[in-house]
């Protein structure tokens, strides 16, 4: 019984195991090992405690900041870009509402396969190639806190799809934005310019001015020059997101934005429209005249400015484009069709080129007043000295022809200008050739603003080319002509002779020409052509509406040209439009307002696209009115338009008709150079 009790006991919870032969004891060896384990445990806990202390107490503030930044996203809500107005307040450019899809790369799925799947879906919905998306995101690498704008102007239905399935598209958000809107289509496209998303190079260059990736920025014209006024400042909002980038709180503004300022131009909408029509009229007239090469009249420029202060009233260039192709997502096919890519520009005759300021042409006879003024200033000529106007002029075995082979009379300066006698000016030019003291004609031309930028507030601008003996020396080297470069380097009589009638190497822009005629009109002052009238700050977010101070344009600069000489030229220009032998009398003779001006027919070697470069006549007309107190200078160039009186003068007339609100009663036959 005792044994059984013992068995019962052993099956219960009491300690003694009857089978243990030797009672088990805690040996020193085991004690040591337990001690080692104990030490190990203490070390482990000490390490954990210290690390916890370091993380939470020593650098807790830093990690707290990191945790807060984790969930915070700053969103830039774009400000509406300022409108561009004409001088009478007509809106030339404004905004329309658009939507865009933003991708936040940091909130995309961490898993590569899921990320690719999502991007593919977004690409399909937004109608953007996946590769384009990937490139955009790659470009954004390193900037996790601003979104990649996928597409502006996606359609409503597509936006709805994305916003309804927010959960399926972590890191993708639909936002509203503003797109540029152009109520007059292509009107004044070169003046206004266009707007696109800022490039990474521009972010790097302009980051100091507060530009951020994703901003819109003006890329040309007024939009570029006055971007600092137009862009306004975006509202910066703070939102809290979860780890999938889903918005958890309504946006709270960190800084209030304000709308862009309105930029008012000196341009007159009506006159601008007239100027663009005038270009069409000029080109039509040219083609209708059936003159040699006029079939190729497919480009031109009109400059209309106030000679008193250089305010530009109209600035047109043809061919042109619609800046709206850059609003929203830019499609390469649209750019191609508009001729705005390098590959297609030539076929469309360079529509992005502003021919008024960024293209240079030989001025032809419109240059003769320059020669006349310089000659009188240098004592080469007096207003009343007479020279023979012959059918041709021969110097050192070279013969230079007059445009009118029947001319044969003695002329004073006024008549020579009015009849545009070439041989008269050849003789004047030859007198300059022998003149001591360097190239005096060029010195005066330079004083009149040629060979330099006009300082207009849009760009880019060409300086043209004012040839001098020094220029010849530098321009011609063994490389340009291995046989005769030493001869090319010489300034020869022919150079002076042809320069006198605005030919050979001389190149000017229509804007330079208009500026020079403004100088004639305003009594010898060189104006700075400009487009900005003022900047008007819109009242928004506590900013009151007011006109902002802007840097004034330089006042018209006196060139100290002799008043008598100027008067002689002015009379010549008036006779050119009013006397029977005047070159544009048929156009302006019966116009109710007295217009003075000069035709020009400039020979330029052009490849019309058939691979045979040959000489084409560039049609010019520059002038001003009213004669007594000029308020408008107009300068028209029609590429390959034939004679100045054929194409450019009728175009200029159209501009004057619009400006003075009068019509010319008749237009007579045109006999001009």
């Amino acid at each position, binding site marked *: 019984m005792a044994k059984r*009790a013992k068995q*019962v*006991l052993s*099956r*219960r*919870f*009491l*300690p003694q*195991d009857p*089978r*243990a032969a030797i*009672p*088990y*004891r*805690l040996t020193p*060896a*085991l*004690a040591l*090992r*337990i001690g*080692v*384990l*104990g030490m*190990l*445990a203490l070390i*482990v*806990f000490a*390490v*954990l*405690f210290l*690390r*916890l*202390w370091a*993380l*939470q*107490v020593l*650098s*807790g*503030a*830093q*990690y*707290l900041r*990191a*945790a*807060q930044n*984790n*969930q915070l996203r700053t969103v830039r809500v774009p400000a509406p870009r300022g409108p561009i107005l004409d001088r009478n307040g007509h809106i030339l450019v404004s905004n329309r509402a658009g939507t865009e899809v933003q991708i936040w790369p*940091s909130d995309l799925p*961490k898993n590569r396969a899921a990320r690719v799947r999502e991007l593919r879906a977004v690409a399909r919905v937004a109608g953007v190639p996946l590769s384009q998306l990937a490139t955009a995101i790659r470009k954004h690498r390193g900037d996790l806190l601003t979104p990649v704008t996928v597409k502006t102007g996606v359609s409503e239905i597509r936006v709805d799809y994305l916003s309804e399935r927010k959960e399926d598209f972590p890191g993708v958000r639909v936002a509203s934005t503003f797109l540029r809107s152009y109520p007059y289509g292509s009107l004044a496209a070169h003046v206004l310019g266009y707007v696109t998303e800022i490039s990474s190079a521009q972010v790097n260059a302009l980051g100091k001015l507060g530009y951020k990736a994703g901003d819109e920025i003006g890329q040309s014209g007024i939009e570029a020059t006055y971007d600092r006024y137009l862009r306004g400042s975006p509202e910066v909002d703070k939102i*809290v*997101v*979860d*780890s*999938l980038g889903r918005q*958890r709180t309504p946006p709270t503004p960190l800084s209030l934005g304000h709308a862009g300022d309105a930029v008012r131009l000196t341009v007159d909408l009506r006159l601008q429209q007239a100027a663009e029509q005038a270009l069409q009229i000029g080109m039509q007239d040219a083609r209708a005249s059936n003159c040699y090469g006029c079939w190729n009249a497919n480009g031109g420029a009109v400059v209309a400015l106030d000679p008193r202060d250089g305010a530009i009233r109209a600035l047109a260039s043809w061919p042109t484009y619609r800046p709206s192709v850059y609003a929203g997502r830019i499609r390469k096919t649209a750019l191609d069709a508009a001729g705005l890519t390098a590959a297609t520009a030539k076929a469309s005759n360079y529509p992005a080129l502003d021919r008024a300021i960024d293209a240079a042409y030989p001025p032809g006879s419109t240059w003769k007043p320059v020669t006349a003024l310089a000659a009188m200033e240098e004592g080469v000529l007096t207003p009343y000295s007479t020279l023979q106007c012959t059918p041709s002029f021969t110097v050192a075995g070279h013969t230079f022809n007059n445009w009118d082979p029947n001319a044969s009379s003695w002329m004073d300066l006024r008549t020579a200008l009015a009849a545009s006698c070439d041989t008269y000016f050849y003789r004047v030019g030859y007198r300059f050739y022998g003149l001591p003291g360097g190239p005096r004609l060029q010195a005066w031309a330079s004083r009149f603003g040629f060979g330099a930028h006009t300082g207009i507030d849009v760009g880019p601008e060409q300086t043209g080319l004012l040839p001098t003996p020094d220029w010849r020396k530098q321009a011609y080297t063994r490389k340009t002509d291995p046989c005769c470069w030493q001869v090319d380097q010489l300034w020869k009589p022919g150079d002076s002779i042809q320069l006198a009638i605005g030919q050979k190497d001389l190149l000017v822009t229509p804007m330079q020409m208009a500026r020079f005629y403004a100088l004639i009109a305003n009594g010898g002052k060189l104006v700075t052509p400009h487009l900005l009238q003022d900047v008007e700050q819109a009242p928004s977010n506590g900013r009151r509406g007011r006109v902002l101070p802007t840097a004034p344009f330089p006042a018209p600069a006196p060139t100290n040209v002799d008043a008598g000489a100027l008067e002689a030229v002015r009379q010549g220009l008036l006779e050119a439009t009013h006397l029977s032998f005047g070159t544009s009398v048929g156009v302006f003779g019966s116009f109710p307002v007295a217009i003075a001006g000069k035709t020009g027919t400039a020979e330029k070697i052009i490849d019309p696209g058939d691979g045979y470069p040959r000489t084409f006549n560039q049609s010019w007309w520059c002038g001003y009115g009213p004669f007594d107190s000029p308020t408008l200078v107009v300068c028209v160039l029609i590429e390959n338009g034939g004679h100045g009186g054929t194409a450019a003068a009728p175009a200029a007339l159209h501009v004057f008709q619009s400006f003075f609100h009068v019509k010319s009663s008749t237009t007579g036959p045109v006999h001009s150079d």
Partner: protein
Amino acid sequence: MAVDYVARSAARTRRREASDVTALVRRLDWILLGSVGVLVGYGLWAIAGITRHDVPGNAHYYVVRQGAYVAVGVVGLLIALLIDPAWYARRWRLVFGGAVFAIAIVFAQGAVRGSKRWLDLGFFRFQPSEFGKVLFVVALAGFLAERSRKLDETRTVLQAVGLACIPIFLVFVQPDVGTAMVYAAAFAAILFVAGVRWLHLGVLVAVAVFVVTTVLWIAPAGGVHILKPYQVDRLTGFFHPNSDPADATYNIVQSKNAIGAGQLNGRGVDGATQTTLHFLPEHHTDFVFASLSEERGFVGASILLGLYLLVVWRGLRVIALARDPFSAIVAGGIVFALLFQIFVNVGMTMGIAPITGIPAPFLSVGGSSMIANLAGVGILLGIHVRARGSRR
């Protein structure tokens, strides 16, 4: 007479049983039991906060489940406490077979999240390797206790290593590198407590170091990929934590942000953005310590670590008190496995240990881990109850 005898015998038996229960209660390690109890309660409270915003509309989803696991675990603890270790010491072969079978059976199942660690029982996803941990310790202890006089022989050590490698390998290829590491750590402690010679231990450590470096660096450099690339990234990622937040070390960066942001007093349940906005992945399982630290701060995390320390200390004390080699070895294996899991899990969240899928003992939401750990504590308590002498 006979009736009288039977009646008296029954009464005696009842008295004896009563005294047995009294003895058991008296001999319980109340500090160990109490600290585990507080730890489990503290864990439930922490989980309640951490998972409050996880399941929309059901703030108590996880804490209720975890409570149910604790209830099952308490039953497991009681059973383990009541069974005399000698009973299963004799049956270590059966225990070993059961462990290997349980671990191997998951290979018949489909993979969950790329690995085969769970056995789906419909109402409960069962992770055999967690239970296998306890069985593994018991089986290896039984093997070594049987050969307690031949422990000095290389042959015995090699046999033990061979035996241990079977379940370790099976867990490793599930793949569950973390749990395999726990097995290996427990095995090391078993050899250590059993009294294997220092020389043998040294050689084994050297071999282990060689194998690890081969698997992690040398073999991949030679073009042989034993581990999957993500595993290598996770195991080695803590050497260069700030390399790329979007990939391998995203978890660790977010985890450190969470812990650090908790500062001294914690950000509270609603202010803990790392947890509630899901920046911290697996915040109720593997990274639960980071969530606890974010919500309850240094104070709250220290309380947890203090409780862990208490449990480990009482566990080490059980080794010293064990009445026989088997009990001592089992206690050593269980305690060290616990210590190892605490270090790797907590260390991982703080960026000082590799990222492995080891849950925090008594804290992470998970039935298998909770039940197995409570059963392990039950074994420790059972050993303590049957300890030498009568002193506590």
